[in-house]
């Protein structure tokens, strides 16, 4: 390729990245930027000035968020999950003591301050309830909706403690849901406040049941992958004995890449070590025409954006037809930027060589390339579906994405499919991580590498 061609590709890639980056940047979890300031103000309103730096961390329960979204379809459910439902939150912890929980929309969810040396005089016990109600009015936006349910009192180290339990009815939540709050006073100082939500069992049940059902349906897919690995083992031994060429470098590179991605994702070595070896051996033995090229990687990465479009479009379609598809993201255990990149590329590097490399390599003589490649679709569709309702929609959405990846592999080989899947996973996982440029960079890295691969491809 000429220098002008390379420059044109790089320029086009930079422009495309500049167009995609703002979209990716909007996907991050909101609320983190202003959380520290809001937390300081909340504690200051209690007469406590937090000292030291603050560490903010996102937290939440995605199953609760999905249950809310199922009960209130569309954007209303997502707003509830980020607001009054309290499913998506930020926790701010101050170095000098004190911590505050806020929902993504900024609603005060919980609060705890250090016990002061002099918490003030004990309350007159018959008036404790009224004081607790008065205190609650300062920390919830709709105090008139709450009623005191129970008061506990106890003495500890010469201080009298009061704990009031409040019931807030459903408020803005769906029918059958219930809001609860607890206010804790030591002496006459508010030291703790926490809100809770009691969901309607059936809403949570549908989501939990669907999640468990999909976990069960993953088992046959793993059986399928196990069969593929065994078949590759037998084929690999035969190839070695017959002195067929072994591509050591791509195999070792794939194993090393899986190791790096696994370490970045934060999983134990036992969860990816054996897979790194198996996939490395598989790529070393795979026929060259199935492995793909650098150019295949390059345009596969950009084709990944097409897969993102199919995945998101499918969700809109299912929701439009009256089905349910979760909108809130699956919340990861690790939130570092490298965890995003690691988790996204780990699944791409392990699954794509098996589904788009091993299955076609094994079954191509019997079924042809397309027949063999389509065999991998049902296996892949059962591996990571979203808990959608009805169940066929969950598997169908994933199958549509798998078909796109098959098409990418047809043009770009395993390299193209890995790149497309890595970009797809990076973008789809992005909403589970905080807003911020390091995470945006982690999500866009695959596309940038794609541009570099396209520019560096050789002339044929």
């Amino acid at each position, binding site marked *: 390729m000429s220098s002008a061609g390379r420059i044109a590709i790089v320029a086009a890639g930079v422009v495309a990245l500049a167009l995609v980056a703002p979209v990716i940047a909007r996907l991050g979890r909101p609320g983190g930027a202003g959380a520290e300031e809001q937390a300081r103000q909340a504690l200051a309103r209690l007469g406590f000035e937090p000292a030291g730096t603050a560490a903010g961390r996102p937290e939440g329960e995605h199953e609760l968020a999905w249950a809310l979204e199922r009960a209130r379809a569309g954007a209303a459910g997502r707003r509830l999950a980020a607001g009054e439902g309290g499913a998506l939150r930020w926790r701010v912890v101050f170095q000098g003591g004190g911590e505050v929980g806020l929902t993504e929309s900024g609603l005060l969810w919980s609060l705890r301050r250090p016990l002061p040396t002099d918490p003030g005089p004990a309350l007159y016990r018959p008036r404790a309830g009224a004081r607790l109600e008065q205190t609650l009015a300062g920390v919830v936006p709709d105090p008139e909706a709450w009623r005191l349910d129970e008061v506990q009192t106890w003495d500890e180290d010469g201080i009298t403690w009061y704990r009031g339990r409040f019931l807030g009815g459903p408020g803005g939540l769906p029918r059958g849901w219930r809001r609860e709050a607890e206010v804790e006073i030591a002496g006459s100082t508010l030291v703790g406040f926490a809100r809770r939500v009691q969901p309607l069992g059936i809403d*949570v049940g549908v989501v939990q049941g669907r999640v468990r059902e999909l976990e069960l349906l993953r088992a046959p897919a793993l059986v399928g992958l196990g069969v593929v690995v065994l078949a590759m083992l037998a084929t690999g031994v035969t190839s070695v004995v017959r002195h067929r060429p072994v591509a050591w470098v791509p195999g070792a590179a794939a194993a090393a890449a899986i190791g790096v991605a696994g370490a970045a994702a934060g999983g134990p070595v036992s969860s990816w070590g054996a897979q790194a070896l198996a996939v490395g051996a598989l790529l070393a033995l795979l026929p060259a025409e199935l492995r793909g090229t650098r150019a295949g990687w390059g345009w596969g990465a950009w084709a990944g954006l097409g897969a993102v479009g199919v995945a998101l479009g499918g969700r809109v379609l299912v929701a439009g037809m009256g089905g349910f598809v979760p909108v809130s993201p699956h919340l990861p255990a690790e939130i570092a930027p490298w965890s995003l990149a690691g988790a996204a590329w780990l699944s791409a590097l392990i699954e794509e060589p098996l589904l788009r490399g091993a299955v076609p390599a094994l*079954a191509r003589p019997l079924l042809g390339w397309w027949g063999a490649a389509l065999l991998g679709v049902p*296996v892949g569709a059962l591996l990571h579906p979203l808990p959608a309702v009805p169940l066929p929609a969950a598997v169908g959405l994933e199958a549509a994405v798998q078909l796109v990846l098959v098409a990418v592999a047809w043009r770009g080989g395993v390299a193209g499919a890995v790149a497309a899947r890595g970009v797809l996973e990076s973008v789809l996982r992005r909403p589970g991580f905080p807003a911020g440029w390091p995470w945006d960079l982690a999500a866009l890295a695959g596309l940038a590498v794609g541009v570099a691969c396209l520019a560096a491809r050789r002339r044929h």
Partner: protein
Amino acid sequence: MSGRKAQALSALRRLGPVAVAAAAVVAVRQPHPACELTWPASSAAVQAAARAASPWLDPGPLRGWSRAGSGWLLRFQPDHGAWLLEVWVGDGGAAPAWRLRVADWLPGARLGPEAARSWLGDTEAVARELLGRRDWSGGGRTLAGGLPAGGELPRSEPARSGELAAVLAGLLLAGAVARRLAPEGRDPAWPWLVGVAAIGMVGLGPSLAPLGARLLAAEIRPAVAALAWWAGLAMLMGGVLFAALTCPTARGLRQPWLLPWAFVLGLAAASLWPAAWVAELASLRAAVPALAALAVLAGWLAGLAGDGLAALAATLGPARGLLLAAAALAAVLAGGPYAGPLLAAVAAAAGGREGGAWLGLAAVAGLLAGSLAAVCLWPAAQWAAWAGLAGGLGATVLAAGAVAAARVQSGR
């Protein structure tokens, strides 16, 4: 005397010793009181339902069964899957024990420790907080909210002899590699046989769903559990069919008169170590086609493992026979539940690459017929077992006679 009559007489002369050996195996068979069953799972279900295990919730229809301890563990579940009732019915006819498993999200009472102890007895009770209820357990009994949920039930013993399973898996891999490295004339019958058996097994999947009872759980709808079971079966059958197509069986049958002897070997293995799991299969409505398909698939796999063993033994030269004899002896002495499959593989290895799979099929058929006769003592299963025994013996003798006659006619 015409040639055909001479062949028939020859076949009868061959049949005599085989029949005597089979009769001896049947006559001196060891009793196995621990795994002899007098009723199928469906009868146990009738008894469990009649004795009203849990009057608290609608148990739903019977979804599956498995053997646990010395009894049947039956699983009832309604279509919505929010709860699962497990009933254990002992073989001795003792009162059924039961356990109700309820989805975590279902609401219920939050009993205090005193109230919980009034049901659990004077014991240390452990609470488990859930979304809408509090569960208690203690003294071997449980409460789901305020609902008595039964106690602990006997479980199936974890599979032992994991090493032997690994040996069998290794032999299968070795067989696959050996067939690919040194392919011999392809037997056109086996891909068809395995194909029909594998596709038949997938087609029978819904009828085989009760065997996937271990997948049933509260919160999971039984239809989805059955789908997962069927999908797993389909993946497995796809793998076997793929192996049958890419690792073809060698054409021919070098020693046809070993066929009936392989069947008798299977019978003897069943007499020594009957396959207790055959009772779960025999309780199905589609038991006979399922057993037939299983025999074909397991027979082909025994042939594959046998080729692996033969390829490994070939490196020993004259000591090959000694290795096979030692493997057979080890299978008999320490094989346990794997004795039958291991002996089938040894029989296939002894028969050589040509016809090893047919010998494996005969041995597996003998093993299944013998196990059915030894384990399932209810009339329908006994009829099927004896029909299988007589039919298997006759079929192997006839097949051997036909192959021998064809060989004489072709002058080989």
